[in-house]
């Protein structure tokens, strides 16, 4: 990667770059001199503490009630606790600074253990803007960089003013497209009009919403934040291809596994309480109930109002009820596409479409969020999924090759869904017991091919072939094929994948 010195004359714009504002007006602080260090927003400690607010609140309450007999001193202890957390945030804010220079985002942080992080933008897989509830009230947003490494965490800038975060994201994304090119840096600066539009409630939202008859937002939706800015909008318009229906989402979650577990759990609790006639049972089961309800709520919160927009810089996803998330999946970064059809949803013709993008396996916070794949379609009709798939894949092989009869003995419960198929671009494999999962993997993304045979499979003359991709946890598994067929796949797939890679690089 070569970096042009900052004072190079701007090269002509690349055709796919965002339209530059006439006259190149609206230069941002971070493009003026590339060596300037920036601070995060002064309110970020508050937002950071807000993330733990529920925990702290519970702790304080517990402490308060536990030592209710003692007086004043406990309150002081509690206050000190809160103050400590806040002070920690302030210190971390004080020692954190960031810089964009020569196609690299640098973040320096840490008081005791000083960290200097470098994120080469050409390696960025995706950049998200995330807003927690408190951050939305304060008009702040968090920028998250996702790198490819399987266990390294990405960079985080928490928090920036939302408009700044948006522009910085556009800027970084454009730099990621053409590393080191000054022209794209200048082009990334959005027009001043767009910047100020951030302060006008819904100014950028309306045109797109009105053009969509399938809009299912509740009237008078309180979702529209007081700050008026929703993260994730770039300067350029895109083509909206999917918007989740809120009512369907609620129904779908109720019918999904966590929903059913929650319902069953609550029913069991009520039944136990009725039988015992002792409210004490309730109290003992309460933590469990809170956990389940939280899980369901988190799902609803993260999937609510999900939209997918196709734009030049990739697929723009936005979703969230309280915590807003916006992310852009750059073209060619999708490692796998997975179609999930749970039993109850299948009856209603619904499905879920997920994509896997290379990134850290687990983030420290929001662990539950990163454990799941990114859902492009949290719940949608088959037609929605078909459209999205055709947007993601150029050809679409169907899982048509069925497993040999002997596989029935090894996998009696999954046999009916086992199948695979391929063409010269993709491999598709489906499996699942009651929930059918179909995974497409582009051949040029295959990291390694594994052939596995367990003792039972050997008895039955079966073997499985797994295709690993650089995602979080997707492995396309061609499960339980005849030994000959599996061996053949193992000998033949690496060559096919290598051809696909060569073709991909040439293009």
């Amino acid at each position, binding site marked *: 990667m070569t970096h042009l010195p900052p004072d190079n004359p701007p090269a002509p714009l690349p055709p796919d770059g965002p339209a530059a504002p006439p006259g190149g007006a609206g230069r941002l602080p971070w493009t003026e001199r590339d060596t300037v260090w920036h601070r995060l927003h002064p309110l970020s400690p508050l937002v950071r503490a807000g993330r733990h607010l529920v925990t702290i609140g519970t702790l304080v309450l517990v402490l308060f009630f536990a030592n209710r007999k003692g007086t004043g001193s406990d309150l002081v202890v509690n206050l000190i606790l809160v103050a400590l957390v806040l002070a920690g945030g302030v210190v971390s804010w004080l020692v954190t600074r960031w810089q964009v220079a020569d196609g690299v985002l640098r973040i320096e942080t840490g008081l005791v253990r000083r960290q200097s992080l470098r994120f080469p933008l050409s390696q960025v*897989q995706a950049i998200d803007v995330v807003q927690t509830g408190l951050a939305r009230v304060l008009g702040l947003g968090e920028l998250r960089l996702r790198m*490819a*490494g*399987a*266990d390294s965490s990405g960079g985080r800038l928490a928090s920036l003013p939302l408009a700044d975060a948006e522009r910085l994201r556009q800027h970084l994304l454009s730099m990621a497209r053409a590393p080191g090119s000054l022209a794209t840096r200048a082009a990334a600066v959005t027009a001043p009009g767009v910047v100020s539009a951030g302060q006008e409630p819904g100014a950028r939202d309306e045109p797109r919403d009105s053009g969509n008859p399938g809009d299912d937002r509740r009237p008078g939706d309180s979702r529209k934040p007081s700050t008026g800015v929703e993260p994730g909008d770039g300067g350029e318009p895109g083509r909206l291809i999917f918007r989740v229906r809120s009512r369907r989402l609620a129904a779908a979650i109720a019918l999904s596994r966590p929903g059913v577990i929650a319902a069953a759990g609550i029913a069991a609790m009520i039944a136990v309480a009725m039988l015992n006639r002792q409210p004490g049972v309730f109290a003992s089961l309460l933590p469990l109930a809170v956990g389940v309800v939280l899980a369901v709520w988190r799902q609803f919160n993260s999937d609510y109002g999900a939209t997918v927009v196709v734009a030049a810089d990739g697929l723009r996803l936005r979703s969230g009820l309280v915590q807003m998330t916006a992310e852009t999946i750059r073209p060619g*970064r999708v*490692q796998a596409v997975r179609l999930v059809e749970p039993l109850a949803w299948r009856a209603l013709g619904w499905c879920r479409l997920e994509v896997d993008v*290379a990134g850290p*396996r687990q983030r420290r916070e929001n662990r539950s969020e990163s454990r799941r794949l990114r859902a492009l379609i949290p719940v949608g009709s088959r037609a929605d999924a078909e459209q999205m798939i055709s947007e993601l894949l150029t050809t679409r092989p169907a899982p048509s090759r069925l497993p040999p009869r002997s596989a029935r003995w090894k996998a009696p419960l999954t046999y009916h869904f086992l199948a695979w198929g391929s063409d010269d671009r993709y491999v598709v494999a489906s499996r699942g017991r009651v929930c059918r999962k179909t995974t497409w993997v582009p051949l*040029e*993304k295959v*990291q*390694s*091919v*594994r*052939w*596995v*045979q*367990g*003792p039972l499979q*050997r008895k039955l003359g079966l*073997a499985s072939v*797994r295709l*690993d*991709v*650089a*995602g979080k*946890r997707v*492995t396309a598994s061609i499960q339980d094929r005849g*030994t000959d067929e*599996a*061996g*053949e796949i*193992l*000998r033949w*797939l*690496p*060559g096919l*994948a*290598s051809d696909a*890679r060569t073709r*991909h*690089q040439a293009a």
Partner: protein
Amino acid sequence: MSRGERTGETTPAPPPPSADSGFPAGARDADIRWQRPSPRLLRARRIQAGLVTGPIALLAGLLLGVAASPVAGLGTGLGLVAAGVVAERFLARRVAAWGYAERNDDLMVRRGVMIRRESVIPYGRMQFIDVTAGPVERSLGLATLRMHTAAAASDARIPGLERAEAGKLRDNLAALGETQATGL
């Protein structure tokens, strides 16, 4: 080193895995030149198994002998040692199952007796290689080479390589990875 060489003389090199080893076979498999880890890997594995089994058996035996009855303690200790000996029987087969082959575009690794695995990892997919050697391996002049790809599930580990061989293989793979590298 002298100890290792002695072991190398006493243990004849195992024959290369044949076609009916239970691993998949293809039409052009004659081109694949399978290589084996050092025969001293078995010795390393035996030492490791002994180092685990011995203290555990001793500790469990002593604890039970003091707490319950000496008979129970002796029984437990001997039982655990017997379990170690049984495990040792499997070690030889497991060690013999390891194999790797450097092909033009990819590395192949096979292993396992109960669960057989064969992986194909293109050189271009390599993110980094590490060579590690634990205390037992080090004392026998062995090393384990692991090739990492961007997929966490990729399984490319070759244990029990001669240290010089491991270094050579590492350099070889690194060079091949560099020339064939592809983006994610």
